[in-house]
Every structure is written in C-alpha cells, then in structure tokens.
C-alpha cells in the first residue's frame, strides 16, 4: 500500500513537472493544440480525393479514407510519443544535469522513467480526442457506433507495448547518448507496415505476414473497428490478445535493458555525459 502511495506521488510529481514545463512554452503548447484542426482538415481533403473511388482494401472501412487516415495518423501519435518520450526525457536529464540527481534518489530508475512518460501519454490522449472531436464536428467523421470501453482497452494495451519499446530504446540513449536514429528506424518501419496511411493488405504477401509481428498493426485494426464499427472487447480478442502478448514479452525485456544500461554507465562513468 505504501509502495503504491509512493509511486502515485512520484507519478503525480513528474506529470505536474512536465505539465508546468509544457505550458511555460505557451506558443508551442497552443500550436500543438491548434495544429490538430489543420491536420484534420488536410486528412479530410486527402480523403475527399478518393471519395467514390472503389478501393477493395478500404471496403472494411466502408470506403471512407478520411476516417481511415485520421484514426491511423492520430493514433500513431501514441507510438511516436512513446518512442520519443523516454529518449527525450533521458536526453533532457543528461543535458540539464538532473540525471545524476535522479539516479541518486532511492527510487528505481525504471519507476522514474515510466513516470516521465505519463504527461506525454496524457497530452497525446488529449490530442487524439481533439482529432476525433474536430473530425466529427467539422468534417463529418461518423463514430456514432463507437465502443468506448474497447477503444480504451486497445489504447492502454497499445501504450504498454509502445512504451516498452520506448524503454528499450532509452537504454540505447543512456549508453550511446543518442537514441533518435533507432526511433526513426522503428517509427519508419512500423508506420510503413502497420497500416497508418494505407491498409497493410495492399502490401506484398510476405510484408503482410511481417506486419502481423508489429504491435501497431493490431492497435490500428482494433482501434478502427472499435471506433468505426463499434466492435466490443470480445470481438477484438485476437488483436487484444496479440497486444497483451507483445506487452508481456516487451516489458521485462525493456526493464532489463534499462537496468543493464544504468549499470553500464555507472561502470564506464558516463552518467553525466551527453
């Protein structure tokens, strides 16, 4: 109980710190919110280009490319942010000199790292909701049948999967001081195979097979079905099961790698390097 209370306090402190730092850059904060409207408009008009075009791959989505693209891009933010937040958090701590101070605290480094990703995840959820809100109010996105419970389950499992990949990359950042190239590579491969801007089914069959080994593919399929077709948790069990499996495998690997990386930088003496 005490440990839970302590973790909640730490998580709250990190979220508050990151919120305060975010709003201290007011123009950037506002542009990230306002930018959602412009991107929703771009997706709408791109979708408009393909209106009435018969594309077999879009049939499961009733031929609505706008809805497909909006959910795909908006939800991929979770992947981008999860990958970047851990790396950014470590790089900022290295640059600002707070990494040593945090490593000196009697709290596990993984707890600190996970806490540092809470605000980015919350902010991404806010942006995702805004995408859906503006999409619905301004551009006629139809999510009237959406199953919110299923969408939340998919979102939480996706955050777990993406975050554990982010934690793995953060171990690279700790040791080599730069994790961004790895993020670009993972982000690029996942976006290409995962069905962000086009259904994965249009890819050659061997790449379709490969895409099923990527959590983003299952996240996007499940999220689109939950929001557009109102699929429930039981109907989404194959995707939810796959995401849960990814999380079970990735989380311990990520935590082990971070533990190893912290030990490594303490051995070679590069904790304060950047």
């Amino acid at each position, binding site marked *: 109980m005490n440990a839970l209370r302590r973790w909640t*306090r*730490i998580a*709250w*402190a*990190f979220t*508050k*710190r990151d919120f*305060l*730092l975010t709003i*201290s*850059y007011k123009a950037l904060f506002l542009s990230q919110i306002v930018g959602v409207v412009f991107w929703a408009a771009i997706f709408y008009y791109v979708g408009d280009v393909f209106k009435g075009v018969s594309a077999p791959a879009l049939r499961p989505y009733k031929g609505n490319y706008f809805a497909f693209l909006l959910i795909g891009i908006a939800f991929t933010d979770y992947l981008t942010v999860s990958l970047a937040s851990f790396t950014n958090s470590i790089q900022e701590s290295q*640059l*600002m*000199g*707070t990494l*040593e*101070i*945090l*490593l*000196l*605290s*009697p*709290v596990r480094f993984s707890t*600190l790292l996970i806490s540092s990703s809470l605000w980015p995840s919350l902010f991404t959820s806010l942006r995702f909701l805004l995408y859906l809100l503006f999409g619905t109010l301004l551009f006629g996105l139809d999510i009237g049948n959406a199953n919110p419970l299923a969408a939340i389950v998919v979102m939480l499992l996706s955050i777990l999967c993406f975050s554990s990949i982010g934690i793995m990359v953060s171990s690279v950042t700790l040791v080599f001081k730069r994790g961004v190239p790895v993020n670009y590579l993972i982000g690029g491969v996942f976006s290409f195979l995962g069905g962000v801007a086009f259904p994965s089914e249009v890819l050659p069959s061997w790449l379709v097979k490969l895409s099923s080994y990527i959590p983003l593919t299952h996240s996007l399929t499940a999220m689109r079905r939950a929001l557009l077709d109102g699929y429930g948790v039981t109907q989404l069990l194959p995707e939810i099961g796959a995401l849960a499996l990814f999380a079970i495998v990735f989380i311990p690997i990520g935590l082990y790698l971070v533990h190893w990386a912290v*030990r490594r930088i*303490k*051995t*070679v*003496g590069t*904790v*304060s390097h950047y």
Partner: protein
Amino acid sequence: MTAIDAVNLTKVFRHQSGWKSVLTRTPPRQTVAVDRLSLQIESGTIFGILGPNGAGKTTFIKMICSLLLPTGGEARVFGHDVVRESTLVRQEVGLVTSDERSFYWRLTGRQNMEFFASVYGPSMRQMRRRIDEIVEMLDLKEYIDRRFNEYSTGMKQKMAIARGLLSMPRLLVMDEPTKGLDPLARHSFLSLMRDRIAGTLKGTIVFCTNIPSEAAEVCDRIAIINHGRIIYSGTPEETEIATDRHCTYRIVVRGIERAELSRLEAIQGVEACTSQLVRHGEYEVALRLDASRPALSDALKFLGRNGCEIVKCARETSDFDEMVRDLMHTSQERPS
C-alpha cells in the same frame, strides 16, 4: 560510528578510441582515477577532501554516492556496501554539486523543490514542512517563488544545498560547492555551512574543494588526494607539522655589519639567508632553515659570537594554501 569506510577503493577508466581500435583489437587506454584509496570518515565530522583538478576527488565521492561502480576495493556508507546495498546508501546520502544546470530553469524554486522532494522524501505533507524549514534556514524565502532562471549564482548554490538537505541525510556530500562564487558569496557560504547546515543536519559533511583555505576554515579533518591517492590525512592544524620541511625565522639584529650576516649561509642547515636594513644599524634577517636539521641555535650562537644584539626573533607562520601545495609537490616528487 564510521560514516564512510573505504578500503583499497580503485577506479580505472578505459577509453576505447573508436571502431578502428575495436577492429584492430588495440587495448583501450586506461586512466587510474582512484588508486587503492583507503579512508575512514567518522560520523558527525566535517571532512574536507582536497586536491587539484583531476586528482580523483569527484570520482571518489561518486563511488561513495553509488553513482559510479568501483573497479576494485570496497566502500561502505554507515555500514552499507555502495555496490550491493546501493538503495540503502542512497537513502543516507545527499549530494550538493556545483552544476547549476541540475535544476528546471523554467520552474520556480519551490516547484523544483517539491519535485525533488517527491522522489527523495517519505511523504509530501512532511516534505512541504521541511521545504519551509530549509527555505527559512537558508534565507531563500524572498526568492523561492521566483523562476530559477532569475536566480544569481549564489542563490542557485543555496538551492543546491536546499535540495541536498531535503531528505535530511546522515551524510551530505558537497562537490566544490563554492565554484563560481565571488569572494563575498564564498565567505557567506562557508559561514552558512559551518554555523547553520552542520548544526541542523547533525550528520557528516564531506566537503570537496581545491581551495585549501576553505577546508581549513570549516573542516574538522582533511584528506589530500593527488593522482587518486591520499597523500595526507589529519586535522588542518597537523598539516603544518606534516609540511614542515623548512621553516623561516625573522630575526632583527643590531651592531653587526651586513657583510657578516651573509656568512650565516655557511652554517649547516641554513638553506637561505637574506637581510635588509630596517633603520640605521638595524637589520632584519630572514633565515630559511631545513626542518630536519635544526640550525636556529647555531645561527643565534654565531650572531652572539659576533657581538650583535638580538632585538627580535620570530618564526614565520605558514600559509595553509602554501602548505597544501607543498604536500602535493612532495607527493609528485616521490616515486609511486
């Protein structure tokens, strides 16, 4: 009780110079930062660690704080092993660095303190009370709700101390906390450390500096590190005895010719002799003597034999900074 017990503590850094050296299997260049260092620091003392840049002071304290893993030897903080029981060690230690980057500059002082308190302290309610007490003690009340980027260097340093005190550690480690401070701020910092921090904490303070006079001002005991080894350990007062390789006496004499005075240099144990006219017929002689061969009485006998009157004879007190420099110099001359 022993606060720090280090036995043969060693840290070797290996520098691989790129992929080429990996492929050609060139062995990495090695730097011995801390070399079989053994040191005990008793609880409740202010202990100064002195040494030039690159002597191994920071490497030593980082190993003590469990921020760096030793290559060899072992160290315990209040009985906890710094490698195997690092979580327990971190509960006992507070660190004050001179790195003013280690705060969130766009947050206020209080927001910074509350954030660090959440990871260091037991409960937020207790922590808020403690923050208020520390703020009061360090005279930060007026500034604590201002953004950190508005603080002067002295204020930032006080914030670093405030953070180090948050968990009320039994061991407070200060790594060159006066770096970058002007003489006035440095003086007030040392007074604060001696009069208030030591009194409030009632624990052990390890104070790393490369300015010997600072250590002499506040520390109960000091250790001098050079090339990763301890070359001296004792009280600041004992340092004078340890460095007593030569001493200088100033003797005011009357009734002797200046030329006669130069003959003092011929006495065994007199390293140098200079004289200057003080007033008509009166000279001040500066006699530098080898401490291992006491030659003062021979010199006084010589002056007496030549019929001169000794008006004054006093030993010159040594400057602490000079003594420490002397010790470091001696350690460099000594083969390792």
